[in-house]
């Protein structure tokens, strides 16, 4: 689960990472009140889940309350386009109004999972404010790493190695070490899958602070964090994806016009790949799971069809636990109920496949039954043209 910067900062602050004084604002009035309280010299920051907000015009430094009000009017409600939002951008519905601080230098701090080691890794870099992927590609030696040992946690000597390594001045080392230890604790205890502070700043007066916060929470661990349930912002998610999640369907909207319904994540990706190979563009990723029932199949169909870009549908099921006859019945019932006008290509294999094919043939609908994935992909690409 992704959360907003201001929510991430609240978590960090709770664990003892110093953050600037600031307030979230949903309206210009609230932004004005926050700017007054902070003395007018503030930063107004668009709160969307995508990165690159500054470059897109979603962050403004202001010198007075009047300026802050102007900036808030501009940013609140804008379609903010960044390299992560796609060309349509993301509407700004929340602002973070924060005290503006005199910055001496910017650094990077981050924690994520090292999959090969099966342990978390703490990263720090002198190249703050830049995208860490770019640093990793061009000057990987500038990213310092310390492995966090399970059960032991980040140790102060590791934090000192990093703090000295990235060139923090001697007078700020203790404060930085304290902030790093707090970040590691926040990550661990929040079941985060990513925690980044970019930039982590050194102020003119020697203090250190988290000027940004990007925290992702492990979805599988949300059950033990009821305190984070409210942090989910459905406005930041695709409405069809939100709808699909209500039925335990794994749906991701893409830009093409061929919808697909598949059981299993790997086969679903493979189906997208073969659609592309056959000359088409997938409209979505959809994994109905290993044990989908008729009701889920019906809802999956409804969600696929509510994407207006879709011109044809490919159903690719390798029946194991999910029997082909159950799938076929679900598809036929959904077609009856929803009145499907688009071409549908069905490819089924595995458990009870003959019975499944019979149900499709005798349904009275003009479904095309394909023989193998390649045939299915070619048929659906033709149908979409």
């Amino acid at each position, binding site marked *: 689960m992704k959360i907003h910067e201001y929510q991430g900062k609240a978590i960090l602050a709770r664990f003892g990472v110093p953050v600037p004084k600031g307030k979230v604002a949903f309206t210009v009035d609230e932004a004005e009140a926050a700017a007054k309280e902070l003395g007018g010299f503030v930063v107004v920051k668009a709160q969307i889940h995508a990165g690159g907000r500054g470059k897109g015009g979603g962050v403004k430094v202001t010198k007075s309350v009047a300026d802050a009000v102007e900036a808030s009017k501009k940013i609140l409600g804008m379609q903010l386009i960044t390299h*992560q939002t796609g060309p349509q951008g993301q509407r700004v519905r929340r602002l973070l109004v924060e005290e503006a601080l005199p910055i001496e230098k910017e650094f990077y701090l981050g924690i*994520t*999972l090292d*999959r*090969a080691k*099966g*342990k*978390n890794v703490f990263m720090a870099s002198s190249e703050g404010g830049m995208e*860490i*992927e770019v640093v*990793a*590609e061009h000057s990987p030696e500038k990213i310092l790493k310390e492995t966090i040992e*399970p*059960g032991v946690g980040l140790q102060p000597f590791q934090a000192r190695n990093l703090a000295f390594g990235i060139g923090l001045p001697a007078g700020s080392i203790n404060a930085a070490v304290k902030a790093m230890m707090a970040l590691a604790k926040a990550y*661990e205890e929040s*079941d985060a*899958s990513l925690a980044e502070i970019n930039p982590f700043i050194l102020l003119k007066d020697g203090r250190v602070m988290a000027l940004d916060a990007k925290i992702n929470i*492990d*979805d*599988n*661990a949300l*059950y*033990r964090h009821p305190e984070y349930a409210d942090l989910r912002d459905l406005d930041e998610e695709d409405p069809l994806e939100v709808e699909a999640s209500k039925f335990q369907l*794994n749906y*991701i909207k*893409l830009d093409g016009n061929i919808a697909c319904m*598949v*059981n*299993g*994540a*790997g*086969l*679903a*990706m*493979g189906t*997208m*790949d*073969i*659609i*592309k*190979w056959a000359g088409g563009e*997938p409209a979505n*990723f959809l*994994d109905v799971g*290993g044990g989908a029932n008729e009701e889920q199949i019906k809802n999956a169909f409804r969600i696929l069809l509510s994407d207006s870009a879709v011109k044809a549908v490919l159903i690719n099921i*390798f*029946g*194991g*636990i999910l029997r082909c006859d159950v799938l076929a019945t679900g598809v036929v019932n959904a077609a009856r109920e929803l009145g499907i006008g688009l071409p549908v290509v069905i490819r089924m*294999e*595995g*458990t009870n496949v003959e019975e499944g094919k019979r149900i499709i043939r005798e349904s009275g609908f003009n479904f095309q039954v394909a023989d*193998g*994935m*390649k045939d299915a*992909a070619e048929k659906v690409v033709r149908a979409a043209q």
Partner: protein
Amino acid sequence: MSIFVNKQTRLIVQGFTGSQGTFHATQSINYGTNVVGGVTPGKGGSKHLDRPVFDTVAAAVQDTGANATVIFVPPPFAADAIMEAAEAGIRLIVAITEGIPVRDMIAARQFLEGRDCVLIGPNCPGIITPEECRIGIMPGHIHKRGHVGVVSRSGTLTYEAVGQLTALGIGQSTCIGIGGDPIIGTTHLDAIKFFNADPDTHAIVMIGEIGGNNEEIAAAYIKDHVTKPVVGFIAGQTAPPGRRMGHAGAIIAGGSGKASDKMAAMTAAGITVCSTPAEIGQKVKERLSN
């Protein structure tokens, strides 16, 4: 021969009396797997599917001599179940459960470090040696005994590959689904090493997907150490970066884990890389006849 499991495997089921455990234990028994009992805390002393139920894995091992376990325990308790099995001396632990928090798996993997046991999964379909032993949730009937080893991160995509092989009359030595999570036990590399050493495995199918660099590591090993033909496929060539494609581990993050990088590494290692999953069976046939 085969790897990890065969006729001698004595299997227990953790989460035995639950609906998933019951359904798949029944399927495995029908397939001919030697299921010797199961574990459900609080139900010890009773019988289920005509087999003894135990409160703890230790008791089950002591009483039945079990050497393998399959875990159908719900996510909040699954890492605990893995560690319990390891502590009880089980040599092969197959964790089917999807949705275990990463923090729990970090602890479980640390716990397994240095112990003489193999973990397959979690979030995986399991392992099967055709016509001998089925551990997991795969449809047994699509498999055929033979000489191709299959290792994959995905469930249904593995069935797809196996279905194609069987349809072409090509049997399998052992098929392993290693799981779609970011932290797993057995990796592609581990499975490849075992298949390479198994005289009964004549060719290997390696199926990967976006996320992590498991496939690149295996490819580097194959380049230097494997002379058996290897056919590969990577799912997610069209997946957008930054999005989790169903599996918790299937995500292109920070510029790494891309399908194109994996395919390039595999091709460089002499692996026949399929551009679509539809040609896996055919490519194996071609490599075997050369």
